[in-house]
């Protein structure tokens, strides 16, 4: 039942994502004023902040689905968790990439040991660990459950890691200008970022639904109902 429903939903979310990105970019590049200190370079914020939000948010959603998959022994929930991981890792990578590209003109170095960037880096390792574990286990059922346990252990650790990195960061050098508290948030900037965040949300839903369908195709081959699918008949 889920398979055809997901199939119908994907185009809608994809179109919504594309439209929101265009509007968000328009606001970000054409309506938002030039920043006093950072000139035009600050416009990376319209990508860096939404992407960083998404990387954290996807991990939470992944842990949520993992918990449901573990608690109710529900295969679909577990598949959702493993479908979310690659997109989450991709967003974390983008967050690090845009953070570095933003740090270079502003602070002159590609990598700033800022508390947020460092915890993004560790989040990336958590994602990679999750995917590595899931691919190492051959039997899908155990892969789902083992991944779920790791995701839950990870989600309990994220606040601790973030707090300890924050603590560590203030110990060494003064809290450098953290990336997300940009200079006074003009309303337009905020709208631009929210639009881009919504756009990345729509994109995530679309891409994750597509991946879940792939996982279903890969795993449910023994089940008979796959054969009646029209794609299979062609």
């Amino acid at each position, binding site marked *: 039942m889920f398979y055809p429903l997901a199939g119908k939903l994907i185009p809608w979310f994809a179109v919504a994502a594309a439209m929101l990105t265009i509007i968000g970019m328009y606001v970000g590049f054409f309506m938002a004023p030039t920043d006093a200190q950072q000139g035009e370079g600050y416009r990376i914020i319209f990508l860096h902040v939404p992407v960083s939000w998404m990387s954290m948010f996807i991990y939470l959603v992944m842990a949520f689905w993992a918990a449901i998959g573990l608690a109710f022994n529900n295969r679909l929930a577990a598949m959702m968790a493993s479908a979310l991981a690659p997109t989450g890792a991709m967003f974390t990578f983008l967050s690090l990439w845009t953070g570095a590209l933003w740090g270079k003109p502003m602070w002159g170095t590609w990598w700033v040991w800022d508390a947020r960037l460092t915890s993004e880096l*560790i989040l990336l390792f958590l994602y990679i660990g999750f995917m590595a574990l899931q691919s*190492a286990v051959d039997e899908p059922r155990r892969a789902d459950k083992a991944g779920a*346990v790791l995701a*839950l252990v*990870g989600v309990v*650790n994220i606040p601790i890691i973030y707090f300890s990195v924050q603590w*560590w960061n203030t110990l060494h050098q003064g809290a450098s200008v953290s990336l997300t508290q940009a200079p006074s948030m003009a309303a337009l900037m905020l709208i631009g970022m929210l639009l881009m965040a919504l756009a990345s949300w729509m994109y995530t839903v679309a891409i994750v639904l597509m991946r879940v369908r792939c996982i279903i195709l890969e795993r449910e081959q023994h089940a008979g109902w796959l054969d009646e699918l029209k794609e299979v008949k062609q």
Partner: protein
Amino acid sequence: MSDTIGLSVLRGVIHRDLRLAMRRKSDVLTPLFFFAIVVSLFPLGIGSERDTLRQIAPGILWVAALLASMLSLDRLFEQDYADGTLEQMALSPAPLGMLVLGKVVAYWLLTGLPLTLLAPLLALQFDLATPSLLVLAASLAIGTPVLSFIGAIGASLTLGLRGGSVLVALLVLPLYVPVLIFGAGSVDAAAVGLGATAHLSLLGAVLVLTAFFAPWATTVALRIALE
């Protein structure tokens, strides 16, 4: 009677594991030699002037201890998994959590404790002042059990997988970050004169948290692996 929550089972498992390990001493000594070698490599790589060494000493000692304690993690469950005792343990009336707790405590006694005792000795290479040595030992004493607990989760998740030992490192290292930060930080703070109490108490908090959650997570992971 005390046996309901399995205290005697706990002691039993600890004794068993200690006796088992003592039969093959090399298993116990390899992490220690690894720790000593890795620590002595750094001055060769970085140069021997005193003040840089003193500054980097806590970080190096902590990272080396962290890696050394991860080295023999597969010894925790792998053999019992292979010869089936793990299944018997899972089927036994005593709560599996207690058995896991016993195994982790035994593992800590065999790797964490020796590392904690050896570290101040090696810190002399880095010309660390004696008060810092004490703080280092204290931070390791609190920190290494946390490493064993989290390591147990990693080991139980990767039970019976090919390439498991590398995978454990990948899963477990990000979770070690807070312990590393508080541990190494405490020695730094003490050296700078800020006093290490804040760091050590935070490390203690992490220890209590992991001591509570880790056995539960490990048991769930073991049941998954044994299915």
